[in-house]
């Protein structure tokens, strides 16, 4: 399965294959309203798809939680600002 495969057509009922192909887009909020609603309905009615969606949702949450709050080093920030001031920043 890859996301390159055909998506469910407008107005058509979503089956498992179509649901799984569009699952990440569904979880990312990237589907249009109609398809999102039909896919949501399928996922809530289909236990295997529900479990798969739950797994992917938890995986994405884990990745997002791993986002570090690493900050730009102070020395770099000062170097950039110094360069920009030389270019006219704050002039």
């Amino acid at each position: 399965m890859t996301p390159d495969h055909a998506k469910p057509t407008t107005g058509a009922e979503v089956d498992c294959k179509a649901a799984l192909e569009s699952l990440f887009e569904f979880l990312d909020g990237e589907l249009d309203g109609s398809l999102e609603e039909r896919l949501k309905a399928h996922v809530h009615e289909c236990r295997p798809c529900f479990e798969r969606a739950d797994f992917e949702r938890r995986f994405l949450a884990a990745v997002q939680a791993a986002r570090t709050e690493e900050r730009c080093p102070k020395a770099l920030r000062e170097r950039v600002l110094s360069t920009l001031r030389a270019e006219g920043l704050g002039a």
Partner: protein
Amino acid sequence: MMTDAPGADTRPTAPPEFSAAAIAAMDDVYRFARSLTRDPSDAEDVVQDAYLRAFRSWHTFQPGTDIRRWLFTIARNVFLRSRERGQREVTLDDEQSAVADAAQAQEAWVRGGLDPILDRTDLGPAISAALAQLPESFRAVVVLVDLEDQPYEAAAEVLGIPVGTVRSRLFRGRKLLQHSLAQHARDAGLLPARPSGSPA
């Protein structure tokens, strides 16, 4: 999108918004540069060059649009230019996709193994390490969408690729990430051995 500024005589003074918005986004740009370069020193070079270029071409920024997207785009261009790898990336992409597809073939094992550990609060370092190992073309998309909360369209603009390619790389990148995490869990003794025939 990025253009060098005209001569110093005609370049207008940068507006206060540059300081207020662009400078405030430096942490995000630095993290993005780190994800691209995987090297702190290289990332600093990218940030420095990107901000200089952004400042000189600030007039190309459209007010009301996402300044992080604009800065990410410039940083990405600086990175590609520094590595001179734009053409090489296309060649590698097929191989990377094949690896991702092979990893996906073990999806049941990956999912079964990861499922019990996904809610652990100590997965962060393993996820960061797995992200760093992703091929650059996948890593950039995953970082932009999953860590920097950029929509597909924005990621496509930053990376200069079609939205469909973002969708495909995101899918494969996430599957590779899951596979790498499963390997980590296996090495940590949390998962049974990988079935035969799975990718290394």
